[in-house]
């Protein structure tokens, strides 16, 4: 039973991180305004939202199961306040920081129509801060961090996220860049 909670905590944390990585990538594609392969723009938007929400569900399972694990012994306060934990407080605290940031991103995204575009966009930038923090937490705190498969996946997803970020910052990122600069279509 104890071992089960631990195993479940690791698996759900891993799935959550993978889904968050996918949400960041889909968020960037969404922002570019381009359709992707056969997916129209509105499908990317819906996919981005739904994968982000699924990642949040797995994040809840991750934290919930480790509260029940007799070794990790997460207390309710550790879920929201970082760096107080008993087991590797720094790395665990980074997980808490990522959770706080992502919670803010998800809540403001769901209340988007009510709070308006300014607040939504300002808070949504936290997504870019949360991803590396969550990754650092997984690498520093996780039981699987030393294993080759985990490191390989971490390096691969970091490479993809950095690549997407460079694309995000490039001059021709938006679908409409060319037309708006008055260049031929």
């Amino acid at each position, binding site marked *: 039973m104890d071992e089960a909670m631990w195993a479940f905590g690791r698996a759900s944390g891993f799935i959550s991180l993978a889904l968050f990585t996918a949400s960041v990538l889909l968020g960037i594609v*969404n*922002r570019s*305004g381009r359709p992707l392969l056969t997916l*129209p*723009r*509105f499908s990317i*938007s*819906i996919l981005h939202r739904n994968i982000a929400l699924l990642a949040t569900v797995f994040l809840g399972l991750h934290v919930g199961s480790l509260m029940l694990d007799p070794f990790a012994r997460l207390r309710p306060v550790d879920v929201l306040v970082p760096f107080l934990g008993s087991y590797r407080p720094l790395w665990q605290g980074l997980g808490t920081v990522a959770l706080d940031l992502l919670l803010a991103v998800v809540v403001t995204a769901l209340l*988007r*129509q009510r709070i*308006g*575009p300014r607040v*939504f966009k300002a808070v949504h930038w936290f997504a870019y801060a949360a991803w590396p923090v969550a990754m650092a937490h997984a690498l520093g705190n996780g039981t699987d961090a030393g294993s080759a498969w985990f490191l390989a996946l971490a390096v691969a997803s970091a490479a993809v996220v950095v690549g997407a970020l460079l694309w995000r910052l490039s001059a021709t990122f938006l*679908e*409409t860049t060319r*037309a*708006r600069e008055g260049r031929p*279509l």
Partner: protein
Amino acid sequence: MGTILHIDWTRCDGRGLCTELLPAVLGRDDWGYPVARGYQGRARTDVPIEPRDEEAAQEAVSLCPTMALALRKAASRGD
């Protein structure tokens, strides 16, 4: 009583989600902005929506990335 789709041009960034969801109602200009098909003047900002398009219009309102769209009940103009 009809429904109109109001486009707030100060917010719209021509991302093209609404033109995908309402292809029969909205075209897209070269800069990506939505253009009401078959309407001139005011109706390009307050676009009349047929009942069969209302659901798609509602979807566009909730998915528009810049929250530039709103559905309104139009007062009857006797047309």
